[in-house]
């Protein structure tokens, strides 16, 4: 259990990359990229977690209560926002690729260029 969250992060990264490499559809590849990226959320939050710690919000609990690292929380927030916007941008590219080539299959998109 001491190592499990880190192993989950490594697994998410590799399984997401596997999906991108073997993808036959650009929308599927974009979702695989999101899966790979979610490994960074798991890793960041695991690094900052402290057993028995509460959320770093001291409205109802006094300052000094054991809490998890707020820095990784802020970094994960940044990560999620950037991930969402990059997905939107890639999906827009996929829309245009489909309009111009009539397919979202990377193999067929490639053979059209040759």
């Amino acid at each position: 259990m001491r190592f499990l969250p880190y192993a989950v992060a490594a697994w998410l990264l590799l399984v997401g990359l596997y999906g991108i490499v073997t993808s036959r559809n650009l929308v599927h590849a974009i979702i695989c990229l999101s899966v790979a990226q979610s490994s960074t959320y798991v890793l960041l939050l695991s690094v900052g977690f402290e057993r028995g710690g509460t959320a770093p919000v001291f409205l109802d609990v006094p300052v000094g209560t054991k809490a998890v690292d707020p820095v990784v929380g802020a970094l994960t927030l940044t990560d999620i926002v950037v991930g969402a916007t990059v997905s939107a941008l890639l999906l827009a590219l996929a829309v245009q690729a489909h309009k111009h080539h009539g397919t979202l299959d990377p193999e067929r998109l490639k053979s059209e260029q040759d």
Partner: protein
Amino acid sequence: MTPGLRRRVFLAAAAAAGALLLWGLTGLPDYGVYAGPYGDVLNQVAVAERKATNVVASVTFDYRGVDTMGEEYILFAAVLGVAILLRAQRDETEQPPDEDAADRHAPATSNAVRVIGLTLVGPVVLFGLYVVAHGHLTPGGGFQGGVVLATAALLVYLSGEYVTLRRVSPELLTDSAEAVGAAGYVAIGLLGVGAGAAFLANVLPLGQPGALLSAGTIPPINLAVGLEVAGGFVLLLSEFLEQTLVIRRPGEVT
């Protein structure tokens, strides 16, 4: 490269990368044992220093305020990129969305969806504003609240038609919300320079922890980010919908 060969090359590389990752990750402190000093220091001093009870908000909008400004401009640039990519191309025409177009007949919205959607719009807007306004007190803030606000526009589309969405969120309004949000962040940063301190220094009165009006520049920055995110996401939504409903390739039946 055939797909089979590519898969084998990837699996070999992934095995090596996975082994390297696991080796590196075993060097981290055990899960649940926090080692770094920064989180502990911030949890001790941030509330007293910035009067914001949500330390994540203090980190995001104050201690790391400049980084978050960069992040906001990543969002801005991405939305701009989508708007440019999805504008009508040279050979395409824009036509008024015809819900009865022969090749894409839109099924009538059921009364159940219409009623639930319209009932939810009000509470969702209120909740979004609450999340934006209380970002320095409880979990939330401009990014989260902005996305909640943008879902209100999606609810309008679901319970009505595309033209209804355009009517409640005209392009001028979403564009200016995004622009004012993006510029507002920098303007609040310049307040610090104007007061003779550093850019994005927290120069406004800090107030008492737990009060709605507290934490100096953090709530105004949350508001700017909320505007930017809400405007940006509504713009994204409209661009994708417009692509399906309004823009026509030459020869496409309308």
